[in-house]
């Protein structure tokens, strides 16, 4: 892996002002509250966490679709929020997005051909008709779309086919970085597998870098080499994928891994789960100290008071849990429970 990051996220925050309840006073949702990480060229970097933890908000800031409340995003050494609009246009060619919902993200009135080639027109590339055609056919081939589909409209396709069209469009300008926000969550298992294989192949062939946003650990494990786990706007753990699965350091990661059902009845029926009590707290009123402490089975006094620092526990393995470095692993920790 190259040592120079492609993308650096620096203590980024996004706070929304909202009204509490129907008539209530104003409150603040700290959707993203101080997140930092670097992504290296050709990495597949995952951001995982439960609904509402801030994944999409983070993704939008990385793509410069939303301005952060504080902090910075640096792409190839340049701060993206300091850019002039002409520079930002150039940046938009380098970073593309794939959305969760292939149904609403494609314009229903456009043909497949115009959807995929629209970025050429917006950015004034491939002005030569023959060149443009060549590129279009190449994209179809990359993404497994039949040429006969070019004149058809999105509603004529199934979810998986629409997602292929969305991917072809994202690849049109030869980007370096793709932010994929739950790209397979809306798809059936058998179609999901096709798209995951496609994303994997494309990454290898086109030397892409992915930021993969997902709530599904199984999908992430299949595709990603590093994982950041978010809880209520903060990253609580970050590690190489295999390390995270085999040796989770944050109690939330441990519980999350233990909750994921495994498609194997021999394992599943013998397995001991760590069941979390309670719900994810309201982001309007997160608990003091470590946000996770009310659901944490290891919580101690300091957890209720102090916001834990993000510590490099082992080389490349970061966790935000004050008791973690001193914690004895219980015998039924996540992966022991798996096997």
């Amino acid at each position, binding site marked *: 892996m190259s040592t120079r990051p492609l993308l650096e996220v620096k203590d980024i925050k996004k706070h929304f002002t909202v009204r509490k309840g129907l008539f209530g006073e104003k409150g603040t949702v700290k959707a993203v509250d101080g997140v930092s990480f670097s992504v290296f060229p050709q990495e597949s970097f995952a951001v995982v966490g439960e609904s509402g933890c801030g994944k999409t908000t983070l993704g939008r800031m990385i793509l410069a679709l939303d301005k952060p409340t504080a902090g910075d995003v640096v792409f190839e050494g340049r701060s993206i929020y300091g850019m002039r609009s002409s520079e930002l246009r150039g940046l938009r060619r380098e970073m593309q997005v794939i959305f969760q919902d292939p149904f609403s993200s494609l314009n229903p009135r456009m043909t497949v051909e115009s959807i995929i080639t629209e970025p050429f027109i917006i950015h004034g590339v491939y002005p030569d008709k023959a060149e443009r055609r060549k590129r279009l056919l190449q994209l179809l081939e990359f993404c497994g779309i039949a040429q006969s589909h070019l004149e058809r409209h999105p509603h004529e396709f199934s979810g998986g086919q629409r997602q292929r069209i969305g991917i072809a469009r994202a690849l049109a300008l030869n980007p370096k970085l793709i932010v994929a926000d739950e790209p397979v969550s809306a798809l059936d298992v*058998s179609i999901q*597998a096709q798209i995951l*294989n496609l994303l994997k192949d494309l990454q290898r062939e086109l030397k892409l870098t992915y930021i993969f946003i997902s709530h599904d650990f*199984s999908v992430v*494990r299949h595709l990603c080499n590093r994982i950041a786990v978010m809880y209520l706007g903060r990253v609580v753990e970050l590690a190489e994928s295999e390390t995270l699965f085999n040796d989770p350091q944050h109690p939330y990661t441990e519980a999350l891994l233990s909750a994921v*059902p*495994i*498609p194997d009845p021999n394992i599943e029926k013998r397995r001991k789960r760590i069941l979390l009590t309670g*719900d*994810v707290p309201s982001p309007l009123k997160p608990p003091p100290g470590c946000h996770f402490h009310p659901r944490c089975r290891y919580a101690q006094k300091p957890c209720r008071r102090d916001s834990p620092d993000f510590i490099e526990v082992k080389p490349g393995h970061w966790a935000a849990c004050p008791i973690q470095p001193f914690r004895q692993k219980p015998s039924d920790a996540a992966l022991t429970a798996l096997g």
Partner: protein
Amino acid sequence: MEPVLSVRGLRTYFHLDDSVIRAVDGISYDLYPGKTLAVVGESGSGKSVHALSILRLLPEPPARIVAGEILFNGRDLLALGPQGMGDIRGNRIAMIFQEPMTSLNPVLPVGEQIAEAVMLHQGATREKAWAKAVELLKKVGIPHAEERVQDYPHQFSGGMRQRAMIAIALSCEPDVLIADEPTTALDVTIQAQILELMRDLQKEYRMAIVLITHNIGVVAEMADDVAVMYAGRQIEQASIHSLFKDPKHPYTQGLLSSVPSIYARKERLEAIGGQPPELTREFPGCPFVVRCPVAMDRCRIQDPPHFHLPGGRVSNCWKQESESEQSRHRYSPAQSAAPS
């Protein structure tokens, strides 16, 4: 032991102006007390329509149950009138849905809705019914149930709403619970809580569960038996262990090998190519034939019947014909045209 619910050759079609959608086109299974049968299959394969057919909750027309039997404790539900069905529904057979917000009434307190169900089905007094509502909310793990019973659905989180739905379903201690994607809208940590709750309550009440899901992990965790559906048809049925150990139908094989798992990292997933067929098209052969890696000529012309295999399992694939226990089939063979 006698099955509490038997579905035999069920077919439910939607008769639209210009087409017929064969939403459910042959499903048969037996469900025993205290057991869980999972119904799995891709989106649109007829899982929900099959469940709604059992409870007669589909708009008829356009829906019509064109063939089959649904036996509940030996009684054919399809022969019952609306009155008889009303006594069964929500009483002996209860159902919970994927999106609890759409099935809870937003303008009534949660407790009121549970109490109503209790009064309706058990003829309890108002006071008794409210006490029961509190008891049920406690049972499904709602903290401070005495106070939360007054809350409206929007004041509950997604997981709490699903618990409330389960409380309503349990209020009459049903023999059968049909759960249609009960955890699909929930986060995994909350899903784990709800599944645990369903298992505990099942033990306590010896309730039989029909669990509809597309999540193979949830199936592995919960099911005793599995029915696999494809394009409206049941294509395989087996006990959970034999299905995962030795899936017979090529679709089931493909399905199981295309699921990613956190337990083992695979280099490549073995995806099934292609798309499921349109249900309005009539196809003479096996519905899976266009995506099937081992299809034979025969599969294109002749629909495979239910082949009964050793171990009480069933597969609808011509490849299993030689293993089949009988040349005649117990249930209505899938190839005989249904009346329409």
